[in-house]
């Protein structure tokens, strides 16, 4: 199962994270965002509405994304965060780095 990417502007994309981001598909997620970065995207909205699993490998891959785009003033925003994802974000205090929005639309508005 791949990740669905939707382009909102030349620099902003939405990635639908699906049911799980974990050690099984973290590499796939990395190559997904890698090609978006090569196409000029710096702002990433991650849609977590259906996500039941986010493990440390999965979170690590999001960190890799952040470290690549932050020097270009890019942002990683979390949209429609499910409860399991919320737990991980709280635990690791990453809400200090990844802004959270109730919906993809709200994230898009804030990032534009």
């Amino acid at each position: 199962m791949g990740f669905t990417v939707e382009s909102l502007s030349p620099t902003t994309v939405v990635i639908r994270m699906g049911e799980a981001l974990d050690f099984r598909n973290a590499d796939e997620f990395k190559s997904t965002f890698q090609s978006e970065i090569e196409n000029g995207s710096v702002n990433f909205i991650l849609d977590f509405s259906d996500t039941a699993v986010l493990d440390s490998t999965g979170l690590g891959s999001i960190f890799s994304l952040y470290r690549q785009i932050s020097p270009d003033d890019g942002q990683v925003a979390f949209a429609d965060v499910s409860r399991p994802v919320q737990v991980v974000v709280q635990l690791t205090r990453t809400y200090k780095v990844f802004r959270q929005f109730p919906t993809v639309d709200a994230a898009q508005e804030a990032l534009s």
Partner: protein
Amino acid sequence: MAEHAILIVEDDSTVRELLKYRLNKKYDVATAANGEEALEQIEQKTPHLIISDIMMPKMDGFALQKKLQDDKNTRVIPFIFLTARADEPTRRQGARTGVDDYITKPFDMEQLLNRIERLLERMQVFQTQLDAEIGRDFSNRLLPKSMPEVDGYRIFFHSEAREQGGGDLFDWTQVDDGTYFITIGDVMGKGIRAKFYAFSFLSYVRATLHTLLQESTSPAQIMSRINEMLLTDEVLEDTFASFLILNWDPADHTVTYANAGHCRPVLITPDGASVAEHSDLILGLEAEATFRDETIDLAPGHALMAYTDGLLEHPVDGTEVLGEQGILEIAEPTLDTDTPIDALLDAALERGDDAFHDDVLVYWMQREA
């Protein structure tokens, strides 16, 4: 399992194409018409297995096999000779030079497929065993051989590594001023790669701690330095870790800690269990991240427990995890037990799945009443 790469070396194009056609269904197949071409192919990409004819122009099968034997990088590639029935003397020569198998032409395709499968399987088993062995070795090195022994305190430690587990780490050291530094961390990732990074990371942390302790005993300051290191060191680039540093002063009965996105420690008293609230951002993400020291007073009979996420994320009821609340509930009764960690883990297994899936590490210390 990744698709195995097989190189077919055969000058007869009919046989070559037939083999390629049959093997392509299951393997990633490359072909060469003689030994020289084969060496060029191997240079580009090392195959998992080679099937080679003997009699070929330019460089024959024996010369090719000899060349591969002379190079330590290619010596271990399983090698199957295809020999013509008329070549009985050469076949015996083939057996002498240490090939893994030989098949006589005209060959039975099923038999060839069978032998390929067996050779690859043997390689795979060997690789898996090696990974497991290295993984166990790293896990053992990441764990302490002993625990601090201090009058008036009870200390317990438990760690259980899973092959598919991550990079849990634990270390402690006594400082000249009589206090102790206890570090617990979890390097992100799974399997042997995480364990390797955890190992490199721990070595660095030990060295940093040693140097920094000359000037400061603030866990928060040490945390900042480790964070900087993770963000600038090329080897550890892309390494992220949750980390908890405790500075325990047995004379003052205090524990000063800094927490970088790690599972929050739990204070257990006869009145109940509570979470040590403060924590900061996980390490390796933001150069400007700041960390803060917090101090806990340990009254007589009170205990402090720290752990890794294998316990926190232990599945309960299929869809839920044990979580902080669950841990608080099962931690409370441990205060009066002889073996508190055993009691804690038993309670966790009773509530949820009957085995842990990830590495589980717990440190438990109590000031005697």
